């Protein structure tokens, strides 16, 4: 569940893309378990998806480190992109 205050906005998009790029696996995410699937390594596509707040993100990956990649991305979302404390500030 994406709880970030403004949805998957620019800064979280950058974090998600950067993290995805650290894995060799090809990684996609979708707003439902049946797609459509978005390339998590494409910053332009991630930003263009404009994921709203309270969406549930589904990840899938193929490749050697696919399991670790999905886990890392889920962790990032669950940590609220490491910037929960910034939400609601002026």
């Amino acid at each position, binding site marked *: 569940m994406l709880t970030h205050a403004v949805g998957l906005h*620019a*800064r979280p998009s*950058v974090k998600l*893309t*950067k993290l995805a*790029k*650290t894995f060799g696996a090809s990684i996609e995410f979708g707003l439902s378990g049946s797609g459509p699937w978005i390339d998590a*390594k*494409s*910053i*332009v596509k991630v*930003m263009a998806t404009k994921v709203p707040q309270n969406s549930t993100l589904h990840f899938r990956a193929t490749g050697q480190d696919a399991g670790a990649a999905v886990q890392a991305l889920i962790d990032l979302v669950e940590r609220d992109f490491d910037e929960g404390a910034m939400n609601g500030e002026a």
Partner: protein
Amino acid sequence: MGNVGIVIVSHSPDVARGTADMVRQMVGEEVPLAWCGGASEGGLGSSVEAIAAAIDRAWSEKGVAILVDLGGAELNSEMAVELLPHERRGKVVVCNAPIVEGAVIAATEASGGASLDEVRRTAEELSPA
């Protein structure tokens, strides 16, 4: 070899500095980054000398991608690239992308170790065909 460097060229020093701040805060420190803005003697404009110096500060052997705002900044950036020493000239590109979004996106792409061509293509995905 490091990551591709990013240079931000605006008519306004405030816009250039602000864009660079966004890149630093959103993307981080791993991308060489420099900015310049304003005419050589103050006021709005762009200066070939300042652009050349910014390219130097953001230099990476992997190349440098320049993001510009309006016409004069683009022309002056192209001029600055042409006046570079021959061995550097082929490693610097002016991206056809909006300056703020382009800079953040180019830097994101560069931070993952992408080539200059990949950085440019990603930034230019933003532009209307």
